[in-house]
Each structure stands twice: as C-alpha cells, then as structure tokens.
C-alpha cells in the first residue's frame, strides 16, 4: 500500500492517542508534544501553514526512536516512524536538521564510518584475515558499530561461519551502510553511501550479504530502493543466516557446549523485530543450537520495548536515549537471567552501559554467546557490560 503522509497524519492527529503509553520517547520525556498524536498534530499544522515549518517545528520530529512500537499497536495502521522519516528528509532539504546531527553527518562524510574512520577499522580487521575467503559469494558486512565497539563479535561470527563450512569474505575498507544519515534526514548523503556499497557488491559479485547489525540490514532491505539504489544481492541478518544453517544441519550444537546454568534472556532489537519481522530465528538459535534455557523479557517480541540505542535517537537526544535504555534494562533484569543476549551492536552498547551496575545482567551479542557455547570462541573479551 502506498504511504500517504497526509492521510496518516490526519487520522493520527484526531485519534485519542491510545498508543502513547508504548512510546519510549514519551515515556521518558513526558511532554504531550512527543507522543505519536503530538507529532501528528504538529505535522498536520505545518502542512496547513498553521505553525511555521522552522527549526523548532522540525526538531520535534527528532523525538522519535523509529522503534515502530506505535505502528504495532495502531488499529488504523498509522506509521509514525515512516512519516517522521518523510519529514526528517524534508528537514534535511530545508537545512533544518537540529544539532548535533549536522556534526554527525560531517564526521561520517569525513571518516566514511559512523564511529571511527573506516580506514582505521579496516586495519583492525586484519587479524581475521585467515577466516576469510576472497572468492566467496557470501559477504559478511560487520557494520561500523560492531567493528568499533565489539570487534570480538566479528571473530565469533566468522568462527560460526567456518564451523558451518560457509566461505565468506569482507569488504576492505568497509564503509558505513548509510543508516545514520538516512535516519537523520540526510537523503543525498545516505544515497551516496548506498551507491558506493552497491558498487562494491556489484564488483565483488556477492550473492548474499550477511550482517549482525539490524540497522545495516534494515537500510539495505527497506530503504535503498527509496534512495534510488538497487542492491543486487540478498540481505539477511546473522540470526536469519545462522538459523538457516542450523536448520539445514550445517551447524550443530552439543559436543563443544560449555557448562554453566545456561539461562539467558533475549532483547528483540526494534530494527530486527518490528522492522524486519525477525523474532523466531534468534530464539531457535538460543534454545536449539545453543541449548540455552531462554526466559522471555516482558514485554517481548512484537511489543518489546525499545532500548534507545538506535542512532535515529541516540545521535540527537542522548539523554532521552539513555533514559529509554534504563527502562529496558530494568525489564531484562526482572527476568533474573544473568545474561542478556541481543542481536544488534547498538542495543549491545546501550544496554551494556545504561543503568547502575548493581543487578544488571551481562549483555552479550548472540553470535558471541553461540560461538562460546559451541566452543568456537575463547572465553574472555567480547561484548561490554
């Protein structure tokens, strides 16, 4: 169905705001302005010229984590993140994107990577050279957040591929996928990154792109086309890929499983769950391949609360983002599980650093816990927290 910004904002603006309790930004900031109906009301007023489309009005559209929780709840199928994205793009065209986003863009354009210069990251990946096969048709796209913050996750993931007999390669250097730029409203810049990646993919003749970062897979799967870029390869998240391998019997648990109580809980990343519909794969991997005892966070799956880690909110409103993270960590801590597993470097970073240390579960990436469980990856190191 074609997205109709006008109809969507109109319906949302006259609705009784029944989804407001699920909005993570509203839950932290409290003001009506940032509730879904608040954002729709402002959008409608701007469309009609009732309030000026200026930096103040535009800034309200950045009080959205893009988590899609409101969309999940809405009986009228209003998609706030979608219309927020439209308006952020307009803010980009009109030079109204609020601070500190322009600084994020400048750094990204300079470094070609979100966290650290892409060239530096490339040097750091040399240690995994032995695990790569240059002729492979499967491209493992680590993502700059994983490469910067959780390089051991890359090693663990590559060990899993190796154990399954899958040959993979990586780009060198690996540049940003464009997600932070696209999410902040920098369409042209995002398209530039998307085109560069598409060209690398085309040159390499890769058939499948596997990434452990849901933002990377989301922007490639769902946004590149709108940016005018065609990616001639299948894009899958690591959990989808490993689940296929395990399902086909190419990746087996058992012999190498390490002792321990084996109880973990799992946080559904918004961009993997609600955006891409990937809920069952990580759970099958944890309980099947990993033989973990999985206790669910309440709420989980489709209604799993956002952690605030996505650059769409964390890059512009870090205090709000941390407040969201603290709330989500409390959800996870209530399970009593000592380990919180997730499948996104941004969630890993936020949940690993939000809140007090007392009673907080250890936060780990799913590939890392699986590789450790199967005896494929050494103890120590790995994710933060």
């Amino acid at each position, binding site marked *: 169905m074609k997205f109709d910004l006008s109809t969507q904002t*109109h319906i949302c603006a006259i609705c*009784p705001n029944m989804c407001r309790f699920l909005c993570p930004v509203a839950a932290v900031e*409290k003001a009506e302005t940032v509730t879904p109906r608040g954002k729709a009301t402002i959008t409608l007023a701007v469309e009609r010229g009732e309030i000026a489309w200026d930096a103040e009005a535009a800034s309200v559209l950045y009080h959205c984590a893009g988590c899609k929780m409101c969309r999940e709840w809405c009986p*009228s199928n209003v998609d706030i993140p979608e219309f927020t994205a439209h308006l952020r793009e307009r803010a980009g065209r009109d030079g109204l994107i609020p601070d500190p986003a322009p600084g994020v863009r400048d750094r990204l354009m300079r470094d070609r990577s979100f966290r650290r210069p892409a060239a530096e990251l490339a040097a750091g990946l040399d240690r995994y050279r032995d695990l790569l096969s240059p002729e492979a048709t499967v491209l493992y796209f680590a993502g700059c957040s994983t490469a910067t913050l959780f390089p051991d996750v890359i090693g663990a993931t590559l060990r899993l591929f190796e154990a399954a007999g899958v040959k993979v390669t990586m780009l060198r250097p690996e540049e940003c996928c464009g997600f932070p730029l696209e999410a902040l409203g920098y369409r042209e810049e995002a398209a530039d990154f998307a085109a560069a990646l598409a060209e690398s993919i085309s040159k390499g003749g890769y058939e499948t792109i596997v990434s452990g970062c849901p933002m990377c897979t989301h922007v490639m799967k769902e946004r590149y086309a709108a940016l005018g870029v065609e990616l001639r390869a299948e894009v899958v998240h690591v959990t989808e890929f490993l689940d296929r391998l395990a399902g086909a019997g190419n990746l087996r648990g058992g012999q190498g499983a390490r002792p321990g109580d084996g109880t973990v809980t799992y946080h559904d990343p918004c961009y993997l769950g609600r955006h891409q519909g990937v809920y069952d794969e990580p759970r099958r991997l944890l309980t099947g391949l990993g033989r973990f005892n999985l206790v669910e966070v309440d709420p989980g799956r489709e209604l799993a609360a956002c952690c605030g880690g996505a650059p769409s909110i964390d890059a512009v409103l870090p205090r709000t983002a941390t407040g969201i993270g603290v709330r989500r960590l409390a959800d996870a801590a209530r399970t009593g599980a000592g380990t919180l597993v997730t499948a996104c470097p941004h969630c890993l970073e936020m949940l690993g650093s939000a809140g007090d240390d007392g009673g907080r579960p250890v936060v780990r990436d799913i590939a890392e816990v699986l590789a450790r469980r199967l005896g494929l990856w050494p103890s120590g190191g790995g994710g933060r927290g």
Partner: protein
Amino acid sequence: MESATSGAPRTGFDVLLERAGRARRPFPTRLVGELGRITGPGHVLTRDADLAVYARDSWTVPALRVHHGRPLPVADAVVLPGDTAEVAAVMTLLYENDVPVIPFGGGSGVLGGTLPITGGVIVDVKRLDKVLDINDEGLTATAQAGIIGTDFETALGRAGFTWGHFPQSTDVGTLGGFIVTRSAGQFSTKYGNIEDILLAVEAVLPGGAVIRTKTTARSSTGPDIKSMFVGSEGTLGIVTEATVRIHPRPERRDTRAYEVEDFADGLEIIRRVMRTGLRPAVIRLYDPIESLHSFKERVTQGKCVIVFFYQGLGRLVDLEVEVVEETVAAFRHRKLGSEPGWHWYKRRNVVSGLPEFMTQGLVVDTLEVAATWERIPALYRAMIDRMLAVKGIVSASAHSSHSYSQGTNLYVTFLAFAPDIGTAEALYQSIWDAAMEACLEAGGTIGHHHGIGLHRAKYMPGEHGPALEVLRRLRSALDPKGLMNPGKLFGKVG
C-alpha cells in the same frame, strides 16, 4: 492560531471561545524564566508546536476543529514540574501573578476539561510518575498522580496485585486524571469506581499550600476531604499523589454471554443479579444496534447480547456463573458461550472508529448517564427517541456497562452526518442538548463517568439545582481569584 475565522461561518464553539478570549489576561513573559528556575528550563514549553499539541484533550469538538483546520485557543506556556514541591512552587508563582492554571494529566478527557480557553499555564504532572509504596498487609498502594494507568497496573501486577480500575483510557490517562474526573473503570461492578477505590490524596491548593489526607480504612472526622477532589476537575487544586485500595491478582477469569429478547429483559436480568449481592467484574448489555455492531454474525438481528465477565477467587467465580445462569434461565435466551466475552476483552480499548468516522464526514461521540432501576427503561427510550428526532443524526444506540444494586448506567453512542464544521458543531450541540434534556426529565444523572469539563458545564444547574451553590462556594473559598481551570465544571469563565 487563537481566534477563529478563516472565512468560514462562526460556530457555537467560536462564540464560546471568543467570550472566553475576552477574559484572557496578559501573560508576564518573565514568568517563563521564573518557572524554569523552579523546574529546570527544559521543562517549560513555549514553542508554537508544544502549545498546539496542548490545545486539546480527547473531546470530539477539538478533534473536529483539528479535522476541519479550525483554530483552538492555546496556553501561554506549559510547565512540567518534577515533584510535589515543584508543583507547589509553580502554583505559588502563578497564583501570585494572577495567571490561570490548567492542570493536565494524560489529556484523555472527552469533554474539554483541559482546554486553555483563557490562556494561562498548563501544569502537566506526568513527570510525577513513581509508585511510592505497595502495602501487602494493608492492601494499599501509593503513587504519584502523573503515572499512566497502565504503568501503575503493570507495577502492581508485578507485585501480585491489581487496583481493578480500568477506564477505557487506561493506556493514556493518569492516576490524578482518573481521580479528578470521577472516573469509572470497565471492571467497576466488582472493584467500584474511583471514589470507592481512593483512600487518600495529596494535593496542592491554589496559592501553593500542600495538603495530605490520612490513609485509613474509614474515618468519621467531618466531611470527607479527599472526596472533595474527586471530580473537582482541577478547579480546587492539583492532585499530586494518591493512595488507593488494591487487591490480590484474580485467581481465575471466566466469561459467559447470552442473547436475550430485548433490552428490557436484559436490564431485568442485571437487576436481579445485582440484588443477590454478587458482583461479576463486568456486566455489559447491548441494545439491538450495538449488539449487531459489536458481535455481528454471533447475534440474531433485533436481539440483545449480554456479557458477563467474572474474575476473582475461583469458587466465587463458580458461584457467580451458577447464579447468573439461574437468573438468565427465567427469560427467553440463547447461550453464546465464552467467545463474545473474550472478543470484547481483546477489543475493549480499540477506538479507531472515531478518527475513521470523522474522516468520512461523520461526527461520532459518546455520552453516559445513569439512573435507578425503575427509571432506566423509560430513560433509555426517551433519550434515544429524542436524539433520533434531531435532523441529521444517523444513529443513536446504547449499552449498559456499570451496574449497581440500585441502578445502572447507559452509555450512548451517536453518529451524525456533518461534512462541514458549522454543521458538525451545531448538530453535535443539538444532539447533546436533546440527550441531556431527556435525561434530566426522566430523572437520570447527566454524567456517569466522563465528568463535566467544558462541554457539560451548561447542564450543571439542571443537574444539581440549588445544591450547585455548595460547589460554587467551596470553589470560591479555595480559589478566590477564580484562576483554576477557568470555564470547567461551573461553566462561568473567570
């Protein structure tokens, strides 16, 4: 965006706003800085975008005006205090400077109770969102007034309790809002309404004094002070904290539904069940139109559906089911099983029809009245007939959803075709007038649980007669400057 007119004809609401606008006082802009010094500058909002969003609650008329692009009055500022002391400091400052104060919770009211019609400062209490105490032994819970209903229930549920108060706005509204609008929850037949659930309040009075009433099982110490804030709609102060009754989580839930011949039979069944002293958590009787609308192919056209929803101690649930079955057996009926009840439960808070109807050029609204059993059948007929007599109305229907030994409520829904704002507001007012007049003539009360707000204030003299003077004097005593939530509850501005 404050005064109306963009070439379109003036509506009744335009006239009301113009009258209120004349009472608007100049706002000393230095107060923005002073408010910021109390709460932190990030918690004072003055952008056009913020003020536009806070210009309304969930009342149909402001929604219609947003739909048709008509203006609404805006506040001069919005402030979000972080605790009771900050609320008190804000109230002191505003009262000293003669600035109107509009308390704000979740904005889920449906009668314009938070509309800043004379300008002033909206005091949003949602930062007061903590659960302060859950007392297992005494079965009480204390929370700050800005907590969202669902968040409060979730916290109680994790500790093994429920407070049993679930207005349809539970996902939107706040504890304080539920108190000051004198709300009822969908499970009120078992757990009571907010006045039965509330044990104590903390409130900030106009001028900034903080009062707290005592938490006790019962007290014989003069008129009940906490009750004065129940239904006060922000005219007597700002509720900042409350202690309420809680209950152990229900051991079991069950539901049964029946098709009965007509609305009168259904009412008689409920009356007989309530006389036994048993209290099923929910009893809902739908008239033929609403039965068909809500349950579609499950029901025979022209018949009525009655749903019982039970929860609590397993043995008590068994007994309630048994007694209801015996009661229903005395009437012509068809058993519909448990599916309709669960269907209602799953969809009980879905209100997507409201915006969808509006975008189709229809006005839809609900109103709720109550009366004693002997008056209810005639009240139902009189209201529906009188409303249907208004030219332009498409339908009027009702259900009963909150019952007592002495009577029940009627929740009336109407639809009218009104493609433009002038027609919509005029038709809306005519239908409401017809309904309220019919209700008063039939001996009903004009409001069961939505409160009064801005819209229903004009019917208050008819409701209370000379007794309204008690409320006026109480308000004058606590708010001599008339700054608290102008235009609400009493109608008079200023």
